[in-house]
């Protein structure tokens, strides 16, 4: 079972990398870009098991290590099953933005 963890800076936190990229995109002729926020994607392969239990464990990993709740939000997504089913839901409770 494969999961992706998205870690992004909270909306209330200035993202200087995003600002720099936005400036570069403007220079390249993309004035329609209103905002850029940079985050991390962490791909995690898990031993097969129940997905809801895996989600709870992944969220615990986020809280304990993968994200710093002072400045970051996180979201857990499971990679599409062969059937094409995909499960996505935002999981950070504190600052949904």
């Amino acid at each position, binding site marked *: 079972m494969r999961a992706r963890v998205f870690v992004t800076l909270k909306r*209330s936190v*200035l993202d*200087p990398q995003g600002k720099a990229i936005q400036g570069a995109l403007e220079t390249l002729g993309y004035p329609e870009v209103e905002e850029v926020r940079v985050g991390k994607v962490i791909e995690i392969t898990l031993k097969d098991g129940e997905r809801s239990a895996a989600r709870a464990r992944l969220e615990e990993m986020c809280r304990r*290590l993968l994200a*710093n709740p*002072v*400045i970051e939000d996180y979201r857990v997504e499971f990679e599409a099953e062969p059937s094409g089913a995909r499960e996505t839901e935002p999981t950070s409770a504190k600052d949904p933005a």
Partner: protein
Amino acid sequence: MKFGIVVFPGSNCDHDAYRAIREGLGEEARFLWHKDQSLGDVDCLILPGGFSYGDYLRAGAIARFSPIMGAVTEFARRGGLVLGICNGFQILLEAGLLPGAMLRNRALKFVCRFVSLRVENRNTPFTHLCRPGQILKLPVKHGEGNYFADPDTLRLLQERDLVVLRYCTPSGEITVDANPNGALKNIAGVCNEAGNVFGLMPHPENASAEILGSVDGLFIFRSIVSSLKKRSDGYQVA
């Protein structure tokens, strides 16, 4: 007094701290490996600068789970003096021993230069030998020193007087230009509510001999020694 310097994989200011304590201060220093489970009979702990675990994930995020951190947390809980310098500060933030978090420098550049710092709180074991409003000249060298705290935490920091050092001009004014990294309210160093855990981005150990360009770091180390001596022949973890 015995200083214990915690060495993580990727620490690179551990020997600087060792020399500052032995030669600048004339006190005892020993290294503690991050896999150690106990601290021995040290009087003060230093978490030195560097790039523990390559700053992977976030600066300090992985070091904070090193085996020794259990003993560090217990030492701090019992009132032991803990000084986190640069990466050591980042580790203390990640461990929750100090409030707030670090972001990338506002200009996205690594900064390496002397800065001026105003002592905002002299009522700590780390700064009590400083004069009121004293300006210290210390070097910074970091890419993630942009201190951040949410509004509630910032209010707490200000109400409880936990901001110990702020970046300032050489004459002591707190200005945007004097801020090397975009840190909130020019905050360069904070302590916990009990006052026994202190983290700062500048490097006092690199300002501990004339040849280094400043000896102002010794105000911090001498304050520590003086506080420890006041604690009835030195603090011992029971």
